[in-house]
């Protein structure tokens, strides 16, 4: 998965300046987000879409790590869940203002991930995957066992304040408004990641991904940029966890379970992580398939398992990647004619 072909978007542009097109796409994406709740009348579909966008945010974090570091995390639910638990615990004990709690709920997992990243990015790729799984599960076990702090398996309801940044709390609880908020944040996150991958820092991490030894030979330190990339992807996961906690007003160890990490990874694989928005597309497909499965949900894990096998074997670039390849081929064919 760590092939030179991955950096289509990054390699072509020599200048670090952003094209007008990318700004236009951002504005367009935001406009679609604001318009969609007006068009989609069904609250059910909006609820589903909101879940998909939050799941998509987590998947984008996982995909960014695959794209920039060339390694696969099986434990990103850790950062999602730690963020949700941070918010819940801070509000439950009423130690800070809610706004400050939000900031801390993002900072704690990001910083923890950075420090952990300094250790675990040094192991080879497959071992990295194994360790992320172990780390994720360690957090899950902790939430289950530390009854006194986390209320164990049952979880707890988060006592949300009446207003948040001056807005009524219903903003984050009703799908009509929460969808717009989540969608806009997702668009901004993808845009931010796009800026990051085109920056010198993004180029450096890609060089390290392609050949770490060579990057070291040229004189770059390689651990720090890789750990920073891991922290960025953890930050995106934490943001998703925060949105989840606000929307549901409830946390339980499920938000830390490896099946969530696995689902996020599967979204990234289905969508394809070569393009930054691929995992988000994967998430939308994932949630609508899950909804279609309906009364078959009993066997949902097996269906997901089968899907990931089929996509890995037949479509390693994912749906977004395959679309991009197709588009590229068409463009070349058009240019020749």
């Amino acid at each position, binding site marked *: 998965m*760590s092939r030179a072909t991955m950096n289509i978007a990054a390699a072509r542009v020599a200048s670090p300046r952003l094209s007008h097109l990318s700004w236009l796409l951002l504005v367009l994406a935001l406009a679609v987000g604001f318009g969609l709740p007006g068009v989609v009348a069904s609250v059910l579909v909006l609820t589903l879409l909101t879940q998909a966008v939050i799941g998509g945010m987590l998947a984008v974090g996982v995909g960014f790590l695959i794209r920039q570091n060339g390694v696969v995390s099986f434990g990103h639910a850790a950062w999602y869940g730690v963020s949700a638990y941070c918010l819940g615990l801070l509000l439950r004990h009423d130690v800070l203002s809610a706004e400050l709690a939000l900031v801390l709920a993002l900072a704690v997992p990001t910083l923890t991930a950075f420090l952990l990243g300094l250790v675990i990015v040094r*192991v080879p*790729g497959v071992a990295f995957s194994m360790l992320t799984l*172990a780390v994720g599960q*360690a957090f899950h076990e*902790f939430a289950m066992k530390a009854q006194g702090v986390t209320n164990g398996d049952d979880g707890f309801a988060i006592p949300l304040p009446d207003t948040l940044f001056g807005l009524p709390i219903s903003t984050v609880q009703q799908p009509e408004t929460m969808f717009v908020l989540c969608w806009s944040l997702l668009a901004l996150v993808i845009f931010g990641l796009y800026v990051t991958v085109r920056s010198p820092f993004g180029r450096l991490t890609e060089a390290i991904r392609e050949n770490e030894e060579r990057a070291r030979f040229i004189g770059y330190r390689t651990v720090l940029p890789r750990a920073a990339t891991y922290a960025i992807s953890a930050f995106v996961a934490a943001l998703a966890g925060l949105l989840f906690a606000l929307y549901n007003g409830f946390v339980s160890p499920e938000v830390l379970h490896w099946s969530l990490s696995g689902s996020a990874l599967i979204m990234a694989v289905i969508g394809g992580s070569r393009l930054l928005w691929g995992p988000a597309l994967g998430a939308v497909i994932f949630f609508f398939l899950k909804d279609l499965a309906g009364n078959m949900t009993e066997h949902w*894990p097996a269906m997901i398992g*089968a899907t*990931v*096998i089929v996509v890995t074997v037949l479509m390693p670039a994912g749906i977004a990647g395959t679309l991009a390849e197709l588009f590229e081929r068409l463009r070349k064919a058009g240019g020749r004619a």
Partner: protein
Amino acid sequence: MTANVFLIQILNGLVYGGLLFIVSVGLVLIFGLRRVVNFAHGSLFMIGAYVGFSISLVAGFWAGLAGAAVVLAVAGALLDVSVFRPLRRQDPIATVLVTFGLLLILEDLANTVWGKETHSLPLPEILAGSVDILGQPFPAYRLLVIAVAAAVGIGLALWLRFSRVGLFVRASSVDPVTTAVQGVNTDRVSALVVAVGTALAGLSGTIAAPLLALSPSMGGSILIESFIVVVVGGLGSFSGALIAALAIGQIHNLGIIYVPWAATMVPFLLMVAVLVWRPTGFAGSHV
């Protein structure tokens, strides 16, 4: 705490460490030859436990033990032919993803066939009692677990040291490219090696079944701990896995007694400490 009670705790740690060793060494074997990690290994452990359980209901415990190993060996050979071999030229991550998909399918399969409720496998009568060790009663069955782990360890060591296949596995785990250049056809031996690895997963599943409750999710925690063992020991290293398994067995057991709320964090902290000190694990100079 008296010395005797402490000794019993050490023995208990040895039971868990031995179990962990049998599971982990299967992963090590497969990694040594194929350079891939089987994420479905914990699920094979779980399936092994259920197969052993079902057979033992009809034919008794010992038949269950043998049956689980045989069924899982066949499954392993199939796994090698249908997954590891076709994907060998791709990024190892592709294999990881496919085995992760298998993990989900196998858990669902166990749910469907054996149901969500937990089962328990009765102890064989001959081992149901307990033995006195320095005046302390110790369950006889646990001694069997230690004995099986020792037998597996010694058997594997002899096999790897003195057989032709063993030579190939050792060579390949040191340097797969040079091994291939020397004319070793890893594809030929790998179905056998993977079968041995999965048979050990099945065997350990059945062995563990009377100690744990059988549930479709029982493969999860053992998979995680065996991953820690394999990484801490140094990927693909047998002696590293043995040392790490025994160490984590003790730490796990003592952790449950003294710091029950953090017991699962302790092996994880050990792992971080070892990796800070040596990023490639105890025995890992290569990889």
